[in-house]
């Protein structure tokens, strides 16, 4: 089966406003990627190319050495990379073996340009993150 399972995407708030067909389109762009327990999934400060959705497993998030909340099945991370290959703002480590679906900037960008709804959702999600970062 190509891409990510559509049900996995349905849970993601970022894609919440997409209709069935749009969801299918997006789902097809994903590729499965696994990480071993203990592996560093991404490191703060490096340029990032991929956005990931966790299918199974758990990952820890840390910023400047401080642990933040852990991520679990259904959570996602790395969305800044969908807009540009910006610098990673957090370090993410696989706490258990991790099963993910990932998408790079180059796959996502045409979709972003073609589909305003996805873009809007992404902006809302980022705005939300900005607010909580400023508040803490």
């Amino acid at each position, binding site marked *: 089966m190509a891409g990510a399972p559509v049900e996995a995407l349905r849970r993601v708030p970022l894609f919440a406003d997409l209709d069935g067909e749009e969801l299918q389109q997006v789902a097809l762009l994903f590729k499965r990627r696994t990480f*071993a*327990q*203990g*592996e*560093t999934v991404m*490191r*703060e*400060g*490096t*340029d990032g190319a991929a956005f990931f959705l966790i299918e199974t497993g758990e990952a820890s998030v840390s*910023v*400047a*050495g*401080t*642990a933040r909340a852990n991520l679990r099945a259904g959570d996602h991370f790395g969305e800044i990379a969908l807009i540009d290959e910006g*610098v990673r703002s957090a370090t993410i480590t696989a706490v258990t073996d991790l099963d993910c679906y990932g998408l790079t900037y180059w796959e996502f960008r045409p979709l972003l340009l073609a589909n305003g709804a996805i873009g809007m959702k992404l902006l809302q999600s980022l705005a939300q993150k900005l607010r909580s970062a400023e508040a803490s």
Partner: protein
Amino acid sequence: MVPVRAAGGCFGIAGCEMIALDDDERIRMTDTAAAPELHFEAPGPGSYELDPVHFPRPLTRYWTEVHPAAFAAGTADFARYYGMLMGGLRMSYVNGFGYKSVAPPPEQEIPQRFARAEEVFAGKLWREQLREWDETAKPTAIAKHRELQAVDPDALSDDELQAYLRRCRDHHAAMITQHMRFTASAVVPTGDFLAHLSDWTDVPPAELLSLMRGASPVSAGASAELERLVAALRADPAGQELLASTGDAGSVLAELRTREGETGEAVSAYLDLVGNRPLDGFDISEPSALELPDALLRAIRTAVAGDVAADDVEERIAAVRAQVPEEHRDEFDELLGEARLMYRLRDERGVYSDVWASGIMRRATLGAGRRLAAAGRIHQPAHLLDAGLDEMCDLLAGAEAPSAEELAARAAYRAAHSAKDAPATLGPPAPPPPDASGLPPGIARLMRGTGVALGALFGSSEAEHEEHLLRGLAASPGVYEGTARLVSGPTEFERIVQGDVLVTMSTTEAFNILLPLLGGIVTDSGGLLSHSAIVAREYGIPGVVGTRQGTELIADGARVRVDGTAGEVTVLA
């Protein structure tokens, strides 16, 4: 985490933290590197000698505040115990560099000292210290380390964290004193042995010291935990394959740690023992073993593979004994026996005392550092290592304290300087030691043995300035002088600073990103057609490969000359 100076634009070093330097920071760091002359003045009357062997780089403020009093107390203790003609040793810090001086003995105690020195050899008083170490000091210290290590700094409130930092610091100070208390016991019997042998034979000190091999498993990193780990892995073939697998060192260690059964338990126990210790050095700025998984994994692999050369020591002892005049051979046996008995104390007194305590203090400091960095009070968690203890607590309490920039500048200063930047002595030259011939025999013997030992064991200034030459394959022509940086894998890449000489066992393509920073490459293995040789040539930097023992013989931070045309690497100091 020290800011890495980059050539030109911001270098993305894959797998490492990197600060995006703005122009001001970059300029400021360059200024520090091209330092206006540092001003050095003797801290007081008397003679001061730089100690680049123990302290090759400037120390943190924390260290310079904790160390002197603790060090003085410990050395005064051993001087009294052994009836030595000094009040103890002193360490003073000038511009962060460590200088040693000798305190004169309290005059009223001199007669007691003479008497005591006589007793030292007659009563083999070092054995009492060994007993004290084994029965009380060491187990008590280990229990305390574990107690402090069990606390999770992240789970403490700000107030509790301040109290915890103070506890760790007090423990660290006590451990520094303990380390020094037991110093002479490690030195006196060995020095006594060396002194006698130099009267009887021409065997060089280095060879005599090699007769101690097997007497100190701790210096090879051994311990009951490591033995258990080695036994577990040797009985676990699948575990050994896991150990040998190529791949991310952090993941391999994580897998080993969580492996079912004895192997997993043994690995966990071992990591709990050594994880919080600096791999090299004493200061809280030195990374701990768990922060360097590549190096840690290699150490475990080496231990499991077994010690190849342990076993000819008996033969070599016999060979040296044969060179001793017959009438002294019984004495030879006795002196060697005492030296071997005490030799392990030389490493144990550090590893189980202040080395471990330093790692614990580092861990606590980084915990506080993370909290302060998240609050935006400092730029990087590791910058807190450059604060004194009171400053750390002030920062946590929100009181007046150094700024984030000030701490960052201190870290940059330490990274940019080494003992080469400091004068070898301050103040007037040291007076020669008193003429032993006029002294009672016990104290003369003590002084002689101590003098010999300090020269041979701890690297006197003559030994430091000796040039050590290594040969390998001339892989890429040119000559370059710079600071050696021992890096065993990607987790250590951030330690490389512009102009360093990479010293490593071998390289892979993952090392390519370091190339713009390097002035030269030195490897243990590899041929002229290996990756390291090819990239050195492509990049046009001097390279010597296949040195066999480069990573063992070149100290991290040492100044080296790499001659890629001749295939030679010289350790300058």
